[in-house]
């Protein structure tokens, strides 16, 4: 998300899957779209039928590859070499969309003289602080921008996160120098060129496992789909995000799309394919520790959050749409605390919790492992199977005093204490586990009202069809009634820390035999209302910072604009983009940054690719989508000298969330690991970093190395094969909803791994027989599915075998098998703290795990031998 958030302004897919029908070329990478987004993939198939070229680049030939026009293999973990080479290809061959680049991106902007690139610093950017293992990003700013506001890095933990407001202070980025000829050596364009100069097709051939010819063919096809008449779209998913440089991989694609002028245009854009019915919603109304609804940042413990005013100052740039930050935080606080939030008590700002460290999944799970956590609620998640280093996660659970699991079935997480491999092997004795486990049955989606927010930012209401059976209850019911019980206890224990809890607005009306709180009221609260008359607001533009409005998530304002008008529940699609069916944030804009679909003068780039344009008669922006722009701001608008907020952005600045209104090819602030992507190898790799031999891994990424979470060397003769994990269509994440249903379980009933024909021949493995896959984190057994769909790669003159492991199986349900994530490590990408599951090292032995115990032990105890 920050990959897209920092580049464009919002972290989320910029278009919809159906818009791919408008693409002239589609690049799918870091994604197995056909298998994991089969319904969205129909648009790719249809586009292909209409003549679009579909390119798939992936370590395996999957069901997506089967339908693509072109498939290239890829060594897992070498994505930035590939994408960097594409960027270089565009730059060296003048394939960029110059007019778009000059006007709509920061390509012409000059960067601070203090900046030194990785080319000069052997893989590090300027500003590296070795003791803190982080960067001071001051040298990454535009020339002339005040570095003061950008420097503050308080707290013990690194900043950064899912909102791009984490990096303390807001530099005034709307004052900069440009060279529209793109020649100045310090302009972004030239820095970009120098930075990617060594990401050559030869490098791709040598280190990605793709032949030069194929790479150039793909580069040719994709890069030609740009310019006024053509667009290309990129689709990605966790094949990119679950890497220690995940955000930077995405940044490469984001840069490419800006170079080719694909953003904000039909068939362009980046389709970030988020899985799970409502994972987008889970970051919008977040279950993330570091953001508040609408991607406001959670206040951090320290000076910056001593007062609401300070916190607002820290998070408010002078220019760009985020100038309205105060309206959103105050309205949120009013929604949380209602009448208890007044200007006098800073609207209850002091009641908000403060971030004091790494409260991410990995962060607190390691705390759990160290015995620092009493209890946890695990709702709709199954970390015993899906967590990174799931074996360690299961062991950690046994350190808790209590565990509440809310789920549809008895999952591996709720039964870890009696059924886990560690228990069965005798390593852990259930009698020694002090954890009290509560399994609370949850209601399924047809048994409750609510919304899903899918990958295209579309909210769709779903209605309760039946009462949940027995004691099953919805999340709303559970949290609402739990909240009531907790508040009841708090009332009897009037400590200062409970004041916020008691101040919360918690007065939803309930209905039905179980007193189900009204989901509709929750959505209305999220939409926002004026406090005085409780009238729903039509959009975020009317929100105020004086406490007269309340809004649970400013980006959702407008989903419920009037009483009785639940736009998430509309099912009357009126046009190609689906207006009238559901409601997309923000403001039902389906293609983000669509101002960029018109020239600086407001006319469409071409008839073929028109989307939004300036109507000079009506004096407003119009077209086939809701304009992602102030509707009445003319294209030739020039801001006044001291203009602020959106008024400071000219009429040809489409990326309105950015302080400069531009697409950021260069990210001056907001990312932990660099203003430009640089290739680093994964934590475990079969090769040394070919681009920066002195910097093997992402310097800011955290490996969380500790006993039980160790890493192989790169390379490591004990673990010569590349491991990648992934999903299948037939199962859903950790399998709780699929391995328990016979119709799904029978489709893929047993755990298997996929290996190439070459590997099978070399190791003497018969198709179908059991093999044991071993890493320093764990060992599992699986059937060996021998197939040409996994290719044997030639990397730097060596044969590299890749092992593919699906991660769906566990020890409960109808379809049982060993747990894939036992193999991967707990690690954190620096910006979003996601684990690296896509490129690691392993070994593979013929035979079942039980028959290989001795050999596995020897392998793990043999000293690491780097080659």
């Amino acid at each position: 998300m920050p990959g897209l958030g920092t580049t464009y302004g919002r972290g989320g897919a910029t278009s919809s899957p159906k818009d791919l029908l408008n693409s002239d070329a589609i690049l799918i990478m870091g994604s197995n779209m056909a298998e994991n987004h089969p319904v969205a993939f129909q648009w790719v198939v249809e586009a292909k039928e209409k003549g679009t070229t579909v390119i798939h680049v992936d370590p395996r030939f999957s069901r997506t590859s089967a339908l693509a026009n072109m498939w290239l293999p890829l060594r897992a973990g070498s994505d930035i070499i590939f994408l960097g080479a594409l960027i270089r290809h565009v730059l060296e061959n003048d394939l960029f969309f110059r007019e778009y680049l000059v006007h709509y991106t920061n390509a012409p902007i000059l960067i601070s003289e203090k900046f030194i690139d990785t080319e000069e610093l052997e893989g590090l950017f300027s500003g590296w602080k070795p003791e803190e293992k982080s960067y001071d990003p001051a040298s990454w700013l535009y020339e002339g921008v005040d570095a003061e506001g950008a420097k503050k890095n308080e707290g013990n933990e690194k900043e950064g996160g899912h909102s791009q407001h984490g990096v303390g202070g807001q530099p005034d980025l709307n004052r900069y120098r440009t060279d529209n000829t793109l020649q100045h050596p310090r302009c972004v364009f030239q820095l970009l060129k120098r930075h990617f100069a060594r990401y050559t097709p030869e490098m791709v051939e040598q280190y990605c496992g793709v032949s030069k010819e194929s790479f150039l063919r793909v580069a040719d096809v994709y890069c030609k789909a740009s310019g006024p008449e053509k667009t290309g779209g990129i689709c990605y998913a966790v094949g990119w995000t679950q890497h220690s440089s995940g955000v930077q991989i995405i940044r490469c694609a984001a840069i490419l799309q800006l170079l080719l002028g694909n953003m904000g245009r039909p068939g362009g854009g980046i389709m970030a394919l988020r899985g799970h019915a409502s994972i987008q919603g889970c970051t919008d109304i977040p279950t993330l520790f570091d953001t508040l609804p609408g991607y406001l940042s959670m206040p951090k413990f320290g000076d910056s959050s001593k007062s609401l005013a300070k916190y607002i100052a820290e998070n408010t740039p002078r220019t760009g749409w985020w100038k309205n930050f105060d309206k959103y935080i105050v309205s949120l606080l009013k929604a949380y605390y209602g009448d208890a939030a007044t200007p006098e008590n800073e609207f209850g700002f002091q009641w908000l919790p403060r971030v004091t460290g790494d409260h991410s999944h990995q962060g607190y799970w390691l705390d759990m492992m160290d015995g620092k956590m009493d209890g946890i609620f695990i709702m709709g998640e199954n970390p015993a199977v899906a967590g990174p280093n799931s074996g360690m996660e299961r062991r950690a659970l046994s350190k808790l005093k209590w565990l509440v699991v809310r789920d549809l079935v008895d999952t591996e997480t709720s039964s870890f204490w009696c059924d886990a491999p560690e228990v069965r092997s005798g390593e852990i004795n259930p009698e020694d586990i002090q954890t009290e486990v509560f399994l609370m049955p949850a209601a399924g989606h047809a048994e409750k009202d609510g919304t899903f927010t899918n990958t295209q930012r579309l909210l769709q209401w779903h209605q309760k069809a039946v009462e949940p059976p027995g004691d099953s209850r919805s999340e709303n019911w559970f949290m609402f009634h739990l909240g009531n019980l907790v508040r009841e206890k708090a009332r009897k224990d009037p400590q200062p820390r409970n004041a916020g809890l008691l101040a919360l607005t918690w007065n939803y009306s309930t209905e039905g035999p179980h007193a189900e709180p009204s989901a509709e009221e929750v959505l209305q609260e999220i939409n926002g209302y004026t406090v005085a008359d409780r009238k729903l607001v039509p959009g975020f533009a009317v929100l105020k910072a004086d406490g007269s409005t309340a809004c649970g998530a400013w980006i959702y304002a407008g989903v419920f604009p009037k009483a009785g008008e639940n736009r998430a529940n509309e099912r009357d699609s009126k046009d190609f983009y689906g207006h009238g069916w559901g409601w997309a944030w923000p403001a039902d804009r389906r293609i983000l940054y669509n101002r960029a679909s018109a020239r600086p003068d407001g006319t469409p780039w071409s008839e073929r690719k028109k989307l939004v344009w300036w109507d000079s008669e009506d004096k407003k922006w119009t077209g086939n989508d809701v304009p992602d722009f102030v509707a009445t701001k003319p294209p030739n608008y020039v801001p006044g000298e001291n203009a602020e907020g959106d008024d400071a952005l000219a009429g040809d600045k489409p990326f309105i969330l950015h302080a400069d209104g531009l697409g950021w090819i260069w990210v001056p602030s907001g990312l932990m690991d660099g203003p430009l992507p640089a290739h680093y190898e994964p934590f475990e790799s079969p090769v040394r970093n070919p681009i920066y031999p002195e910097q093997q891994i992402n310097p800011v990424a955290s490996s969380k190395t500790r006993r039980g979470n160790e890493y192989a060397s790169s390379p490591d003769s004990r673990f010569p094969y590349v491991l990648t994990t992934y999903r299948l269509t037939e199962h859903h994440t950790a399998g709780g909803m699929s391995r328990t249903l016979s119709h799904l379980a029978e489709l893929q009933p047993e755990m298997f791994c996929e290996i190439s024909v070459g590997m099978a021949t070399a190791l003497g493995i018969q198709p179908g027989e059991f093999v044991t896959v071993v890493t320093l984190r764990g060992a599992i057994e699986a059937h060996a599915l021998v197939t040409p769909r996994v290719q044997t790669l030639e990397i730097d003159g060596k044969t590299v075998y890749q092992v593919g492991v699906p991660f769906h199986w566990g020890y409960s349900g109808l379809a049982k098998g060993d747990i894939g994530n036992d193999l991967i490590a707990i690690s954190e990408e620096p910006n979003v703290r996601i684990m690296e599951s896509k490129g690691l090292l392993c070994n593979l032995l013929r035979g079942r795990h039980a028959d290989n115990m001795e050999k596995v032990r020897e392998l793990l105890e043999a000293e690491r031998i780097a080659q």
Partner: protein
Amino acid sequence: MKATKATEDRLDEIRRQAAESAQLAGRGNGAPAPQIRGKGSYYGLPVLKAPVWTWEVPLYFFIGGVAGLSSCVGFIAHLFGNDPALVRDALWIALIGAALCPVFLIADLGRPARFLNMLRVAKIRSPMSVGAWVLVAFSGCAFVALLATELMVRGYGNTLIADIGWAGEITGAVTGLLLAAYTGVLIGATANPVWSQNRTVIPAHFLTGALGSAAAALELLGFLIPATQDLGLTAAGIETTLLIYFEFRRAPVNAPLHHGKSGIAFRVAGTMAGPVSLCLRLVSHAAPMRMAAAICFLTGALITRYAWIWAGRASVKDPEVLFQLQRKA
């Protein structure tokens, strides 16, 4: 432990040992990875479904055959004025057989309670429908014929009863022949390769077995007369001819008759009903030899039916056989 060549060798040793002690599990239709080449089938999986019938069906074939031909023998023996005791016993065999047949047929149904649904329709293009009605008709005829005979024997007879008896015997003979023969059509007119390719021979094979079995049954009841010897010799002779005939039919579709469980059963059964029975009868006319030959033939005829069903099951396993047949056509 320091890193040395020794530790490296040890790692290789680990891999080698793991390779040696590994078990083969799972399936695949060929090293190194299952693929579909040229005009090959879908991974060697069968196209057609194997017959679902269990042990009751071949047994029914056998009993039906004995019963049907017994009824025919009884009628003809009666017609040519033979030993009334023989006629009577033949008709008893027919009726007992007719009574047993539905028991086994119904037991084999997936929903035995719905056996009467067999009589919902009469479809001449369905051999099984024909068979169901033939069995009903035969049972009725056999009952009538026997009833009349018994009444006659006990002195309650009159011309009407005699006529009815004759009617029962005639229709019993005809339906009896059909009962024995239709089972060959039943399995011949199917999609099963080995059955459908041999559809003209199987009815002959079944009839032969039924004929010889009827004669053998009567012999075991003590009727060691020239007629039963003639029938026994003829049936054994035809069985021998068929055995030789099938030995020469080596097209891939007939592989189940020469290989595997069905092949062994087919040959053993064919040998017992054919050359062995024949030799026993030719060697001596003595009662023990004839009894032995009768038992041999009965056993062979019974196993033959099992062999044909097992052959049907084996026949669907290799899809290439089916494809080759269809490409030739």
